[in-house]
């Protein structure tokens, strides 16, 4: 016969095991956001520069700049640039749509960072290939505060 202690231990194990397994299988929201852009494609980590400060004192307004080494011709250009946050309540930050008329594949803006985290930039090229880059930013005072 099971003692009370043995029983509760067994019950705890039975409950915690599947929960743990579930937590491992469930991708993070930002991982889902990245997957929804890439699909099955494998991005290259080249030709794309994501410029951000290493340390952001104010997470409410962190400047960023994305630049892709691209000729921006009809045949070979950047179609879109996606910005994903790994540590904000919502992973999506912005999507920029470019055309060969852009001339230069470079976009700058300012974003909110709730806490220290990685920021990801993904470029979608006219041949349906992808470029990706990641930057770690330390945040002193978080944005998105309530």
């Amino acid at each position, binding site marked *: 016969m099971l003692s009370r202690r043995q029983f509760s231990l067994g019950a705890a194990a039975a409950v915690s095991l599947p929960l743990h397994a579930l937590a491992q299988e469930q991708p993070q929201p930002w991982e889902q956001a990245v997957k929804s852009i890439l699909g099955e494609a494998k991005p290259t980590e080249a030709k794309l520069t994501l410029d951000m400060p290493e340390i952001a004192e104010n997470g409410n307004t962190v400047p960023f700049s994305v630049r892709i080494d691209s000729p921006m011709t009809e045949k070979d250009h950047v179609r879109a640039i996606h910005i994903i946050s790994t540590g904000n309540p919502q992973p999506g*930050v912005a999507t*920029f*749509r470019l055309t060969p008329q*852009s001339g*230069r594949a470079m976009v*700058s803006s300012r974003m909110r960072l709730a806490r220290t985290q990685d920021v990801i930039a993904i470029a979608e090229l006219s041949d349906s290939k992808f470029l990706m880059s990641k930057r770690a930013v330390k945040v002193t005072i978080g944005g998105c505060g309530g």
Partner: protein
Amino acid sequence: MSKPRVKLPDAAKVGDIIEVKTLVSHVMETGQRKTAEGQSIPRNIINAFIAKFAGNEVFKAELLPGISANPYLSFFMKVPGPGEFEFTWVEDGGNKIVQKVKLNVT
């Protein structure tokens, strides 16, 4: 919503690649914040920005609450010829701010 600010080069030639900078005053309310009484403050952001030149779309941005208040954008364009920019900022709920700025093409 107040008048946006747009910065273009004073003059450009056909074929030049120019930088376009825009700034619009907007709270960019995330929808994540609460009032002191615990009431959720509804999301209210500029969710899209469209730049047209001489009637053709040259740049577009889809913005989410991760973009800072008073959204600033900088992008580039290869000057196809003389023309006027038409910039449109779209707010949640559909309100639009439209500003037209002529480019001095020499």
